[in-house]
């Protein structure tokens, strides 16, 4: 479903040099497959998610998704494609404070559909356990509830791929498992591919496939081996 070939991304430095962030020869995610991405801070995990979603343009390489070569897309085509096919869950939730939970989900639909599907938005919020919080604004909800709204919003357009960037990093341990389970289950239910970035080993350990972003390249790792490697480099657990 998602295929990345020879992806390269670098950023300019104050001295004029360019710092290579990503150099990934090959990376694939099948339909419905769930992948955890580990790596040190500043290692390029978020940049990779931005690159896949078209938020950041890559320097070179190919990103194929659903038989389309996204790297050939113009920016506006990619925007539309992202709105319809890629869901995004952020570490800081990024809900819009002026809108209620329901409106935040509807907002997620606004840029993909001409008429947002109120019924489905309602169902999604019920699905994430917030049927009673439809009209609450973000500042009237707990952080766990806010992230649930963010998950519902990411699923609003029935995407084929969900990108979750440290979705549990700002959530108390009691709620972390609930969020991870929610994301996993929702993706399984709808056969949505998932790429989840995390530093939490207890989160990573719940996934069959764990990839490690090391020296700007992605390498597949056995769950146990990568865990010890990560712990050895001082990552949070």
């Amino acid at each position, binding site marked *: 479903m998602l295929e990345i070939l020879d992806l390269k991304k670098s950023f300019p430095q104050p001295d004029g040099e360019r710092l290579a962030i990503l150099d990934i020869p090959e990376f694939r995610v099948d339909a419905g497959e769930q992948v955890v991405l580990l790596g040190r801070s500043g290692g390029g995990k*978020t*940049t990779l998610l*931005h690159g896949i*979603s078209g*938020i*950041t343009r890559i320097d070179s390489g190919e990103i194929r998704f659903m038989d389309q070569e996204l790297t050939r897309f113009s*920016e*506006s085509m990619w*925007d*539309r494609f*992202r*709105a*319809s096919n890629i869901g*995004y869950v*952020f*570490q*800081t939730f*990024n809900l*819009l*404070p*002026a*809108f209620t939970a329901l*409106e935040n989900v*509807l*907002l*997620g*639909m*606004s*840029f*993909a559909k001409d008429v*947002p599907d109120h019924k489905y938005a309602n169902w999604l919020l019920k699905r994430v356990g917030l049927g009673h919080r439809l009209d609450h604004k973000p500042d009237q909800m707990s952080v766990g509830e806010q992230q649930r709204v963010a998950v519902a*919003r990411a699923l609003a*357009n029935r995407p084929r791929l969900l990108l979750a*960037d*440290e979705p549990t*990093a700002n959530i108390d341990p009691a709620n972390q498992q609930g969020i991870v389970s929610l994301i996993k289950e929702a993706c399984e239910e709808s056969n949505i591919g998932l790429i989840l970035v995390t530093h939490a080993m207890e989160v990573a350990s719940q996934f069959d496939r764990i990839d490690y972003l090391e020296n700007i390249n992605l390498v597949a790792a056995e769950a146990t081996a990568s865990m010890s490697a990560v712990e050895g480099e001082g990552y949070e657990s």
Partner: protein
Amino acid sequence: MNLLTIAVRSIKQRFLSSTLTMISMALGVGLVVAVLAIFGIVQKSFNANATLGYNMVIGAKGGKLQLVLNSVYYLSEPIENIPYDYYLEFQNQEVREKQYSGSYSYKAVQHQQAARATLLASGLGVTSPAGIVAALAANAIVEQHHEHLYPWKREGKYSAFTDFAIPLCLGDYVGPYRVVGTTPDMFSLLKYGPKGDQDYQLDGNGRNFDYFTEENGFFEALVGSVVAEDRGLKVGDTINPSHGSTEGDAHATKFVVVGILESTGTPNDRAVFINMEGFYRMSDHAKPLENEDDVYGTNQIAHKITDADYILPVEKREITAMLVRMDPLYSIGIENQVNEGNVAQAVFPITEIRRLLDYFVSPVQTLLLVLTVLICFMSGVSILVSIYNSMSDRRSEIAVLRALGARRGTVYNIVLLESMVLSLVGGLMGIIGGHGLIAAFSGVIENQTGVQIGFFELAPPLPFPVLNSISSEFLVIPCLVLLAIIVGFIPATSAYKTDVSKSLGK
């Protein structure tokens, strides 16, 4: 969820800042509406006087505008007076003879004729029939020769072309308001209104003043509606005009108010009209003459000057100006003729008023409009500042919208819509506020100008090509939209250029 909803929510999120910005815009637009309303009031006030009911003003030589200002609007100081017999040149023989009948020259001729008749009668008794015939013939020849020399025996020079000529005697005041000595013709012949077809109406049981009544003699007055309201005057009250200026000494002569004019929207609302005969009979008003006899001379108090049968001599009369309606076909020729002489000047008041509007009032109005438009523009800049300042806080929100699939153009439009909503809502508040202000002051405006203006009254078109067919207020909305686009451009571009990756954070 449409873009307008998103824009409105964003505005509501910054409630205080947005409200203050809209109030600033409302004040600016309110001022524009008020200025446009002033345009309308001036225009209507002008239209109300557009016909005046007469087409020429004749007064002493001097400034044309000053003559119009003091004889049409009762503003400014009168220039000088013109002789009464000049006024009589606009009257027919009958009126002239009546007016001249009190004059010294008329009396002198009468004395002369009486003496000649006596001489003739005494001669008839002593001479032969041939002598009688010769004496009668000589007398007839003398009479015939003198006939055309007597001014009361001929038509006024301009009377054939004149519908009416109404004299004005200015100089006295009641409080700050002008006292106008005139004839009853002022309100029986003169009409007013945009078409010049409306009769002056009197409140309640009032009536026009008369030349002479048993009850009040020559001393009756009509009071304009503004004066009546301001001074609390009603029919039956008396007034003592003050001499020469608003602070001048009050005359001992009392005038009885016999009528209150209904509001007309003309300068007549702000004046007191007294019988001209009474005006002359106030102390120091009749022109003093050298070697006057004691009976009807300068010492007026000692004489029966207020008697009904006493006609003040023409020689003792002057007028400040006269309002003349004449056949337009001849008016230009007569204007030239009057102006070529050395006694008086004739002006076309409408031309002078139009000139005043074009050279002075319109530029001032335009200046006011420019100033208020600049104020609006400043309000627009405050919208720009408000939205632009919020951009740093909102950059992550914009990045989120972009991450959700909004295109650059979409976020650009959202910010532009915010600018438009702030401008239009502020503008509508201003329009409503401006009209509210006008409605609140409608009573005062009507009193001062006679122009009736209400909440729903739209401003007149601007005096510019293309724009002169619709109310100028209809231009406010597109102007606001344009302003919103201009001031929204910078923050919208900033939103357009938002680096999603950097602004999104985690």
